[in-house]
């Protein structure tokens, strides 16, 4: 296993599309690193550049201590799992697993041993003699993972490997991948546009937008302190409420009358936006202590929680996450109260976190 360093990566396709503007990544040895971002932000391109399937226009890629810019994929000693599993349809599972090993020219007993080992890890025993078309989506994915394992590469790259699975299976496979990664101590770069997947898997998450890295951090950091308005609006479901605020008497005041505690080090004379998580707000009975008057616009019952969309006279409605024990109907007159800690604050013009 080895770490991966990506420095000032830039990729422009021959047709002129700039898929990656500027990306710096430093992925540690044995780390499960997730790249998260909306469709078209350059995740796949970055991954393919690391794999050597795409030549970057500028920038350096190092795997371990080796500068791999000019190495073909075959010499980078990396395994990749594709969204579409790319199992060879005319080969049985057994041979699909053995293929990369035969490319290396390993002796037969060794090939057999490694295939058996990978099959055990991914519980493929009964499937070894089937062809891909005789396997379910989840089974195919397990075979694809096993094929990545057999070679014992220096790092694993995964491009949305679970997208084609249904929700339940996806959750299972997520656990399985995480477990496997831990057990092998493997360096793994995992690409997804699913934030739940990113949060639950990643040791660290890089949030990409329009070919740039917006933020790199642990899932907690990324959730608690989104580094930009983009991250704030991207992470969380529903995402943060972004409320325009003014500093009056050392406190943050929203247009609708919500008062929030200010973080230290606020800049002066700038238009500011506070990011408030839906769980940092509370819908109360009207005129409850510390609340401002508000009106319920709509209610989403999710079973284990309720999302209220509330109008408090501000420019935008805010979303509030409440336990299902509290019940207000739509159009009800209610109170709105801030219960969380200090919010994050962003500069409207730079869209960056300022405090």
């Amino acid at each position, binding site marked *: 296993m080895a770490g991966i360093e990506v420095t000032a990566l830039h990729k422009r396709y021959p047709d002129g599309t700039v898929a990656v503007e500027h990306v710096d990544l430093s992925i540690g040895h044995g780390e499960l690193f997730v790249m998260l971002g909306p469709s078209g932000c350059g995740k796949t391109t970055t991954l393919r550049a690391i794999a050597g399937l795409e030549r970057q226009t500028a920038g350096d890629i190092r795997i371990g201590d080796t500068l791999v810019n000019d190495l073909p994929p075959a010499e980078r000693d990396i395994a990749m799992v594709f969204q579409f599993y*790319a199992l060879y349809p005319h080969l049985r599972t057994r041979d699909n697993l053995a293929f990369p090993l035969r490319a290396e020219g390993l002796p037969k007993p060794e090939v057999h041993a490694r295939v058996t080992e990978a099959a055990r890890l991914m519980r493929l025993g009964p499937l070894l003699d089937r062809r891909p078309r005789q396997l379910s989506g989840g089974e195919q994915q397990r075979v694809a993972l096993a094929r990545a394992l057999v070679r014992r590469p220096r790092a694993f790259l995964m491009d949305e490997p679970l997208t084609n699975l249904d929700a339940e299976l996806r959750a299972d496979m997520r656990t399985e991948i995480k477990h496997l990664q831990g057990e092998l101590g493997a360096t793994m770069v995992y690409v997804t546009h699913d934030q739940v997947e990113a949060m639950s898997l990643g040791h660290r998450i890089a949030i990409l937008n329009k070919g740039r890295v917006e933020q790199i951090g642990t899932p907690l950091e990324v959730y608690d302190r989104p580094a930009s308005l983009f991250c704030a609006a991207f992470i969380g479901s529903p995402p943060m409420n972004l409320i325009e605020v003014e500093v009056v008497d050392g406190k943050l005041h929203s247009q609708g009358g919500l008062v929030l505690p200010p973080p230290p080090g606020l800049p002066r004379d700038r238009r500011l936006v506070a990011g408030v998580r839906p769980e940092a707000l509370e819908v109360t009975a009207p005129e409850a202590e510390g609340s401002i008057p508000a009106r319920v616009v709509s209610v989403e019952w999710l079973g284990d929680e309720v999302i209220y969309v509330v109008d408090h006279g501000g420019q935008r409605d805010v979303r509030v996450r409440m336990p299902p024990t509290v019940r207000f109907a739509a159009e009800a007159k209610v109170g709105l109260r801030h219960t969380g800690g200090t919010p994050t604050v962003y500069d409207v013009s730079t869209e960056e976190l300022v405090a």
Partner: protein
Amino acid sequence: MAVSVDEAVSTGPARDHAPPARRLGGRGRSVLEVVLLTVLAVLMLFPVLWMLETSIKENRDVYAIPAKFFDFDVTMAHFKDVFVAPDGGRTALSVSFFNSVVVAGVSTLLATVLGVPAAWAYSRFAVRAKKDQLFFILSTRFMPPVVVVIPIFLMYREFGLIDNKLGLILIYAAFNVPFTIWMMKGFVDEVPAEYEDAAMLDGYTRLQAFWRYTLPLLVPGIAATAVFALIFSWNEFVFATFLTSSDSVRTAPPAIAGLIGGTTTDWGLVAASSVVFALPVLVFAYLVRKHLIAGVTLGAVRR
């Protein structure tokens, strides 16, 4: 290279799922269908049938007026005449059949060997002005080949390719390469590029990846394409007529056409040689019919 095409072409259950509208259409409609199809079949097949009949009729029955449909005497003499000369040697016709096999076979091979990798490259790589190039390649097939027969003739005279099998092979290959590229590009597009990506990560070079992964998946498509190219080369008449003159180089189409005309025409021989000429194409198309279906439906590889 062992890819089973049979698996790719579903044959079984389709029959059971005939749309109900068909059945509800009632007897009247199906009778009409049968009648129309029969008429069509008779119209289409009559010349073929007549050719078959004539090829096995005694000469006096061939020329009988009114024509004899059923009660004629059967002979294999015409077929013997196709291959065996009166002096016992090989006929010019039999030589022309051999030439046809060589010319059609080699030109198809050439077109496939050149066209398949080209199609792969056009499908996989970012080529400058790819669309324009592909359009240009296709545009060579827009005009009727006859249009270029004079310039080709003059050019070939310079190169000494007139009345030369190599000349025919080259021109047929030239016509088949664009066709092969276009047809094969469709097939290559159907094979996900991730196979090659995965193979390259597994330690193969790009060419090995193509050779070991993509090519086996392309076999049905290559077979279908090659059959079409083969049929084109086998049937080609205009260039064969203009560019060849001697019996030792001629292919079958002009040789058979040459039997007609002059003072008398031996229709029995014409019919027999036509049957011999048509047979290989029919047999070949029949043998690879599954590949053809797989090819035409582009269903050989599913994502």
